[in-house]
């Protein structure tokens, strides 16, 4: 009971208040703990947890495979690729360096060192390593190894260094997969906006307008659209809206025509500058939207989230909420 219930609760209370108090108390031990060791500890625990997770994943995939459940063939793929990556992560590192050239296997590295010399003077074939020549291939290899001509990459550095098998896997398997999953979003974001950007009501229309203005205003194509064109467009759309409200054709026509004429006169007088009046020039308008109304909304959400997190964290530290421990 003590081990299962009270110690976990005590851990939350102690470490929670310790890290919180580090911000106010001028004590170096507590400060270094909070600034450095506390998160370091967590990272280490999380690193152990990764292995726990891997065990769970393997267990489920093996069950699926053994019981021949639906899609068991794919489970086999998962298992194989797990062990492939695991082996090159922990057992075979690849990356044998000969000066600055790098080889996946020690054998290949050796072969690159050894030159087969069939000079006529010697009559028979010899193996040369640097300036030394050997009759026997294995002698040549032994020599190369003894002279430390080949340096394998250090364990640990192999996950950070170009040329290792691990890095090959990262470059050609892991990163294309994650980049492509991410790129799928380009399509999904398009279909989501197509479906969701409908002017159902005023709020939805605001969302839609802000979205479109940002989308067009921030790319080079947007700076080609003159503010006058936008104004004509606005006149046209408000004409349509008036038509929708009043349902009288002549009112609509008069309004729209008057609008067009006004815009045209203004344009002729000012000489049609592409970015004036600036409020209708999309690159500037988008800047305003994102610096003013958008920033206001973001600030509020930011504050809300901040408050939520502060109060929730305090709830955990004070032990008011402990259901995540299975209480």
């Amino acid at each position, binding site marked *: 009971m003590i081990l299962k219930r009270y110690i976990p609760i005590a851990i939350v209370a102690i470490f929670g208040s310790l890290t919180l108090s580090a911000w106010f108390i001028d004590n170096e031990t507590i400060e270094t703990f909070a600034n450095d060791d506390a998160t370091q500890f967590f990272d280490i625990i999380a690193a152990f947890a990764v292995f726990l997770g891997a065990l769970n994943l393997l267990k489920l995939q093996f069950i699926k495979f053994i019981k021949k459940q639906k899609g068991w063939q794919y489970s086999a793929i998962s298992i194989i690729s*797990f062990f492939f990556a695991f082996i090159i992560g922990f057992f075979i590192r690849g990356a044998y360096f000969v000066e600055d050239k790098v080889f996946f296997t020690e054998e290949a590295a050796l072969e690159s060192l050894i030159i087969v010399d069939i000079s006529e003077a010697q009559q028979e074939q010899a193996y040369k390593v640097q300036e030394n020549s050997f009759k026997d291939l294995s002698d040549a290899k032994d020599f190369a190894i003894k002279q430390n001509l080949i340096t394998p990459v250090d364990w640990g550095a192999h996950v950070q260094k170009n040329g290792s098998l691990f890095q090959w896997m990262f470059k050609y398997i892991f990163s294309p997969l994650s980049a492509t999953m991410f790129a799928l979003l380009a399509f999904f974001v398009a279909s989501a906006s197509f479906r969701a950007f409908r002017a159902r009501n005023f709020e939805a229309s605001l969302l839609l307008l802000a979205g479109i203005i940002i989308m067009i205003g921030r790319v080079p194509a947007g700076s080609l659209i003159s503010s006058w064109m936008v104004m004509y467009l606005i006149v046209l759309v408000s004409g349509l809206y008036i038509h929708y409200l009043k349902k009288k054709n002549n009112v609509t026509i008069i309004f729209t025509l008057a609008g067009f004429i006004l815009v045209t006169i203004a344009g002729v007088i000012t000489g049609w500058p592409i970015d004036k009046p600036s409020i209708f020039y999309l690159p500037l308008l988008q800047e*305003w939207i994102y610096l003013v109304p958008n920033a206001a909304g973001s600030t509020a959400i930011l504050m809300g989230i901040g408050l939520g997190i502060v109060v929730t964290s305090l709830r955990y530290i004070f032990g008011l909420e402990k259901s995540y421990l299975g209480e």
Partner: protein
Amino acid sequence: MTLSTMIGAWVAVFLTLSIFSYLYKDNPFYKIAEHVFVGVSAAYVAAISFWTQIYPNLLGRLFPKDGPLSFTGLEFDFNHSFNILYVFPLLLGLMMILSVFQKFNWMARWGIAYTVAIAAGLKAFGYLNSNVLNQVSASVISLFGENLPFFNISGDSVFNNIVLLLGTISSLMYFYFSKEQRGNFGKLTRVGIYFLMISFGASFGFAVMGRISLLVGRFRELIAYSEPSYNYSTIWLLILIVAFLFYHSLREKESNT
């Protein structure tokens, strides 16, 4: 070009196209790519966290060079000094792994408790400071500052400041829970929602922009791999996958009728 690069390019293209085939529908290629991804990444994360975390930061601190435990024959030199405190995460970590057995299930609780504790302790202050206080002081606006124009499209101005103030307060009040959003208060929160919606729309616009950029990047790579030096890998694999999917869908149609 070395053999490993060539194989790598073909593998990369195959996996890329397989993931893209999901746009058509769930199909064997996507399933293969998905399962490869899951398997590889689980081991990838395990290797990375072992070699960059447990190895240097835990073992490096418990078994440093010439440390008190070097009699065991274990020495990991990362220029750290011996730190007995690190027995604690070792213990919690081992307990975490042991919790894989039903009987020791409770052992995970210690690790969970520790994690939540430091999360709460470290985050509470950080958020109070940067999300609440800094934003409050940034929200206090100037109405009569020197040389402040009434309106300026990109930059500070009285009009912009008023909009900012109104927007921030009304949106903040949308998150007020102890009152039903009716009457005058309802009107205020309504305005708040308008600001939130503009903010969401803008975010969405930015998201479209970002995601398209990523697609541009992806396509550039596929184009690069379709060059003769890679034996036209993109083109061949594309033909293969499309042909298979076409055949597959024909088969499905037949079996349906």
